[in-house]
């Protein structure tokens, strides 16, 4: 029971943390909860479809279909996160500076929120399809321990959701002055980490050159299965043995989004009254 709880917890955690951060970052935008719910719902439905199609997807692209599919999901998520951060670089500051005129940003925020829904759906889809497969495997395997394993799975799911919720509540306590700096920094690292994962998958599927395997090995210093290693992996895309390509994707994504945020900030100064 404990084992299945841990596996489901690990699969759920990544999506739950992302949702926690995004939910916090979009605080105050109208219809946010509805868009989040649409994202989660679409993601869960998609998970079941993808789980059912695992074999078909795996057989595509000469056996590298799964990598290609997941890399595409990650790629779109990175674009959405980048866009969110660049959008927030101006609107977030405005919202923080003049909390009462949020109504303006709210109207222009609807397009942004639909992007957020897609982002959440993709995060749920990626982790959810693996969880669905795992739980299906449990359900399919006969044995008296089945109920307890499934119970463990539910427990893990609940723990993952609780972790996402805890992060959200923690972020919501940050004073508005620092709030957008904190959330956009978190998102910047998340996006770079996802881009790194995307590169790892493309290398694993032999679709991209690895450059160097690994570029460095810090596994004796900070192993991936340690608590700190795991947390850094989740929040900042830490890898103990990254390939050169992975590091390249990471650094490039980080730089491009950061440059976009700077550009967006200088283009639309804080004092401009109309922001659309």
């Amino acid at each position, binding site marked *: 029971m404990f*084992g299945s709880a841990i596996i489901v917890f690990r699969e759920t955690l990544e999506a739950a943390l992302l949702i926690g951060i995004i939910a916090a970052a979009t605080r105050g935008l109208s219809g946010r909860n509805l868009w989040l719910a649409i994202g989660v719902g679409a993601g869960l439905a998609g998970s079941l479809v993808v789980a059912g199609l695992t074999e078909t997807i795996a057989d595509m692209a000469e056996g590298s279909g799964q*990598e290609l599919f997941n890399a595409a999901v990650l790629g779109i998520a990175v674009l959405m996160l980048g866009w969110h951060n660049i959008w927030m670089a101006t609107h977030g500051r405005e919202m923080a500076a003049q909390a009462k005129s949020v109504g303006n940003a709210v109207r222009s925020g609807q397009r942004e929120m639909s992007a957020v829904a897609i982002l959440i759906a993709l995060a749920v889809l990626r982790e959810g399809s693996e969880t669905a497969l795992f739980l299906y495997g449990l359900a399919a395997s006969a044995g008296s321990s089945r109920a307890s394993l499934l119970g463990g799975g539910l427990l893990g799911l609940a723990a993952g959701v609780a972790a996402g919720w805890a992060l959200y509540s923690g972020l919501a306590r940050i004073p508005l002055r620092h709030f957008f700096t904190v959330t956009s920094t978190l998102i910047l690292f998340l996006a770079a980490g996802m881009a790194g994962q995307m590169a790892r998958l493309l290398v694993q599927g032999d679709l991209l050159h690895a450059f160097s395997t690994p570029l460095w090995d810090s596994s004796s210093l900070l192993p991936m299965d340690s608590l700190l290693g795991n947390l850094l992996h989740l929040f900042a895309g830490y890898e103990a043995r990254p390939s050169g390509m992975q590091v390249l994707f990471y650094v490039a994504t980080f730089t*491009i989004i950061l440059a976009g945020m700077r550009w967006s900030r200088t283009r639309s100064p804080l004092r401009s009254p109309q922001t659309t």
Partner: protein
Amino acid sequence: MRALLFAALLFPLASTAADLELGLTIKDHRFTPAELKVPAGKKIKLVVSNQDSTPEEFESHELNREKVIAGNGKATIYVGPLTPGKYPFFGEFNEKTARGVIIAE
């Protein structure tokens, strides 16, 4: 636009074919062979066939690899080129029994 440009730049870095192909079977939540000897410095195409009806996830921190394999399904995983050493792997969904190691020499 920048992403496109980036993609175009990366195009020449597309990968070259693997040097050798190896098979790995999952049955009763165990890997056979549990120990794979491979030459160091070569890229390997690992074809994992899952003969169980339940899905499995091939995972290795040492190899930096992770892939779900459907029940009664097959999956291709590229590894290496590896420096000489031991690279343990396991099946995440049945971690107690599904264990193996790649030895590069």
